[in-house]
């Protein structure tokens, strides 16, 4: 099969028991679940751990990643004055610039510093009340300056909330990603982002978010794609 015809499906938003106290899923549990899902025809290539309000530069999931054949990358979900923000490609400079534990970081700075330090920021669960971007644009009259991409399809949001995110993205011409917001094993990969190239490292991810073409998908949509293009993980 021509490799260029494949999409690469990454779940860009997940939490684990390693660092999020409201999570019930372990990182290994996620990897095992993805292997089990693949056996049933679903396509999930990997996931990004975006633990709440922190980034541990020393945690390393490469061994698990190799053992299960699943890309496991790391980012963070931080909290800003326009709701929660997912940050990928976190550098020591980014960590020095902010106290990630704070719950009302200045979003313009977060988006700007992420870009300037080689990373990328995305407004999380854009359609959710109080913690998503749409609420701050529509109700708090904040501006969208500096925000290029929203997590429009979020596995922890209702259909209505995801539609609010979609309307926002269409109104401002924003790029869209998907993530499960998994806190439990069976939720990982429920919503993902389809990329045109393989993503093995966080650098690959940032490059694709900056320059690639991508769109949000549900895990069921990958089943249809798999039926059309053949099994990839057999």
């Amino acid at each position, binding site marked *: 099969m021509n490799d260029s015809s494949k999409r690469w499906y990454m779940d860009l938003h997940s939490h684990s028991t390693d660092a999020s106290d409201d999570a019930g899923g372990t990182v290994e549990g996620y990897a*095992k679940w993805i292997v089990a899902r693949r056996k049933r025809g679903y396509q999930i290539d990997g996931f990004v751990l975006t633990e709440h309000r922190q980034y541990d530069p020393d945690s390393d999931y490469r061994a698990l990643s190799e053992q299960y054949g699943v890309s496991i990358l790391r980012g963070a979900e931080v909290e800003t004055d326009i709701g929660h923000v997912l940050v990928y490609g976190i550098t020591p400079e980014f960590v020095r610039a902010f106290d990630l534990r704070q719950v009302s970081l200045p979003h313009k700075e977060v988006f700007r510093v992420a870009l300037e330090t080689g990373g990328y920021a995305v407004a999380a669960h854009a359609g959710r009340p109080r913690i998503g971007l749409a609420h701050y644009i529509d109700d708090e009259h904040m501006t969208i300056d500096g925000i290029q991409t929203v997590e429009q399809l979020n596995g922890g949001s209702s259909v*209505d909330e995801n539609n609010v995110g979609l309307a926002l993205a269409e109104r401002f011409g924003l790029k869209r990603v998907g993530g499960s917001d998994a806190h439990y094993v069976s*939720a990982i990969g429920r919503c993902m982002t389809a990329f045109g190239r393989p993503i093995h490292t966080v650098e690959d991810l940032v490059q694709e978010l900056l320059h690639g073409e991508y769109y949000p998908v549900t895990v069921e949509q990958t089943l249809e794609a798999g039926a059309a293009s053949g099994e990839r993980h057999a």
Partner: protein
Amino acid sequence: MTASDALGGQRYFDDVESGDEFTDSWSPTGEQVVAFLTVSNRTAPGPNRFTDDEEARKIGMTKAIVPGQMSLCRATDFVTDWMGPSGRLRSIDVNFRRPAVHDEPLKVVGLITDTLDDDGATTVKLDVYFENERGERPLQGVAVVELPRR
């Protein structure tokens, strides 16, 4: 009753695998909530958020809500019903992420996420959740159950 009768509904470790799903439905009525509060001696005098829509609206809910303990009991019974007489529930941890309200149809879902054989101690891990018609999950949790081998 013979052992084989009693074990007719038994679930075996050999027969389950990661990804298996089982479901049930639940639509807790106001009467059931009152019965639960009564059995647990938690009835309060006068209307409250668990029994009265108006009281629930005062705290931002759309209708009277289901007590968290009652949801935990329903989730636990869902698992212990599934595991059969020789199964053993080790633990269940749940989060109440959104309120469940009276008469709301909920799908109750169990999903096997892992099977572990630790020197003959055979356990399965399950995700358990309630999902409403809007795709919201009022309860989400993890249960660990010991299941016998055949």
